[in-house]
């Protein structure tokens, strides 16, 4: 169950990790979803780093964003037991020995989300009833359903208390959902650059992204597996996403009006500006690793998420009244997808419930993406907060 320390090609200590999977909700005991539909069997991919301690009190659950996967940190172990020559996990700057989420201290689990295409059950999985991919017959899933599946994984691993649930963006929504749905399991929580409900602006961007996929003739109402995929639609959806992850300032600093590999305008429709070339590159990179239907389902789940509606009849204060966790909330000054006022609204509701909440708005130029970039401030915040949570949970 534990990860193994090793050395990467530069000699830095890294975790050697393995992709693992857990399957549950076997027929006929299918998983009941929020929509009323059922789904089964359900497979959840996950990875772990660090070692579980004797009393199972050092568990940290990391939850990834929209297009992430369970590979949060370290390198995959090859057959010879040495690191494979692959990319380190998506949060390798934060998770590892001596890092913000210190794998010398904590047993860190990252679970892939239900509906994803990164090893967990999603629209690209085979429907046992038809023997074909679910495609558009995959039931609509919600953040609540994703968390329910993660809870099943925790049960399977024998974990009853989680020292901290940590995640940014759509991962942060899952963090909030965990705190409200399973309050007695969560000791502390770190929702980063997230929201308890999408603004009209966020829904609008998601809808344009979904429309671009559905308008691609290859989409074929979702039934494109084994055929030409809606690559163009998915690439454009990703380009829209990347605009929302940046900021006016970061785009100005990164690209400005600079041209790509040329000095003068060529008066044609190719990618001339650097920003155009960047977005096209990101779009083309994305279609190689992500499934268009998964994108549709997960963005819809994010749009549906509304903690106040779900648990408080519209009142966020009432929704948080169920929570027991200590919180560290972090927002970023230039995040226009989930601006600071949305984090502050949650902090307010937590305070009204006498909850223990720390909050910091990090001054950063890089927009919503900032939470994934290396930043000593975030490392220090997380390190200090986790140590306190561990210390005070022992005291109780």
């Amino acid at each position, binding site marked *: 169950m534990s990860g193994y320390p090793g050395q990467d090609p530069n000699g830095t200590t890294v975790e050697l990790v393995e992709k693992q999977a857990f399957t549950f909700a076997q027929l006929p005991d299918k998983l009941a979803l929020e929509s009323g539909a059922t789904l089964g069997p359900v497979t959840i991919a996950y990875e772990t780093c660090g070692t579980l301690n004797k009393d199972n009190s050092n568990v940290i659950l990391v939850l990834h964003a929209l297009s992430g996967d369970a590979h949060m940190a370290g390198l995959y172990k090859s057959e010879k037991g040495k690191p494979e020559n692959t990319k380190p996990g998506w949060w390798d700057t934060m998770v590892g020995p001596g890092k913000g989420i210190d794998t010398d201290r904590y047993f860190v689990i990252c679970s892939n989300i239900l509906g994803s295409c990164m090893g967990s059950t999603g629209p690209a999985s085979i429907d046992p009833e038809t023997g074909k991919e679910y495609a558009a017959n995959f039931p609509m899933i919600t953040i609540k359903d994703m968390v329910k599946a993660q809870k099943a994984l925790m049960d399977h691993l024998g974990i009853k208390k989680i020292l901290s649930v940590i995640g940014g963006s759509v991962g942060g929504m899952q963090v909030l959902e965990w705190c409200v749905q399973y309050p007695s399991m969560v000791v502390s929580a770190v929702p980063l650059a997230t929201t308890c409900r999408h603004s009209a602006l966020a829904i609008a961007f998601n809808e344009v992204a979904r429309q671009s996929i559905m308008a691609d003739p290859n989409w074929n109402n979702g039934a494109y597996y084994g055929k030409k995929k809606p690559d163009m639609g998915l690439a454009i959806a990703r380009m829209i996403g990347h605009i929302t992850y940046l900021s006016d300032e970061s785009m100005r600093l990164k690209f400005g009006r600079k041209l790509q590999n040329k000095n003068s305008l060529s008066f044609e429709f190719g990618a001339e500006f650097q920003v155009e070339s960047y977005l096209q590159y990101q779009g083309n990179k994305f279609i190689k690793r992500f499934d268009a239907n998964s994108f549709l389902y997960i963005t819809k789940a994010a749009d549906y998420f509304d903690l106040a509606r779900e648990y408080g009849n519209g009142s966020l204060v009432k929704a948080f009244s169920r929570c027991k966790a*200590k919180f*560290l909330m972090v927002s970023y000054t230039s995040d226009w997808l989930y601006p600071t006022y949305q984090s*502050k609204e949650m*902090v*307010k509701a937590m*305070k*009204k419930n*006498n909850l*223990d*909440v*720390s*909050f*910091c*708005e*990090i*001054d950063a130029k890089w927009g919503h993406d900032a939470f994934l970039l290396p930043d000593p*401030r975030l490392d*220090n*915040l997380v*390190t*200090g*907060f986790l*140590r*306190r949570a561990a*210390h005070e949970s022992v005291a109780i």
Partner: protein
Amino acid sequence: MNPLRYDLKIIASWIAPGSKILGLGCGEGDLLYWLKREKQVIERGIEIKESKVVKCIERGLSVLQGDINEEIEDYPDMAFDYAICSQTLQQVYEPATLIRSMLRVAEMGVVSFPNFGHVKIRLKLMTSGCAPVTKELPYSWHNTPNIRVLSLDDFKGFADQTGFRILKKAAINTNGGQGKRVTVLPNLFAGYGIFLIGKE
């Protein structure tokens, strides 16, 4: 652990062990950290500066970033035993509102500020005719964050007008680490005043 500043030591001596504390404008959290370690208090802090908030949370304190005047409004009535406003009242636009809020969310409040009635200040203004700049109030008129200059006696009058009681007071002179109490004519000779206040 670094020794506590003299004025903070006096405040700390007034706090009952195990109580619930709200630190308003808590800076890097020196007082909250000391109280948590030595008196096992349950602490919450509010600080506006990002770098100081990071420092507090890094030290294991529960602190949130924001404006004290706004943030204090969200806490339920009597959520704390003490609300502490150390060396910040002179920078608050509406001190009466803040003090009322402090005594809404906490049983008692602690307020400290530099004394504008000090003899040095009086003499400086009289002799030079210019806005006084001192060790306790080191800014010029055009760059000072201290928009409410008050004396110890002003605060006593303010208590009567606003409707709160002064439960304890300390008039002090200090260079930071060291200091002493001023008992003779404190409004003339003390650099700072510290007050424990409660509802009428």
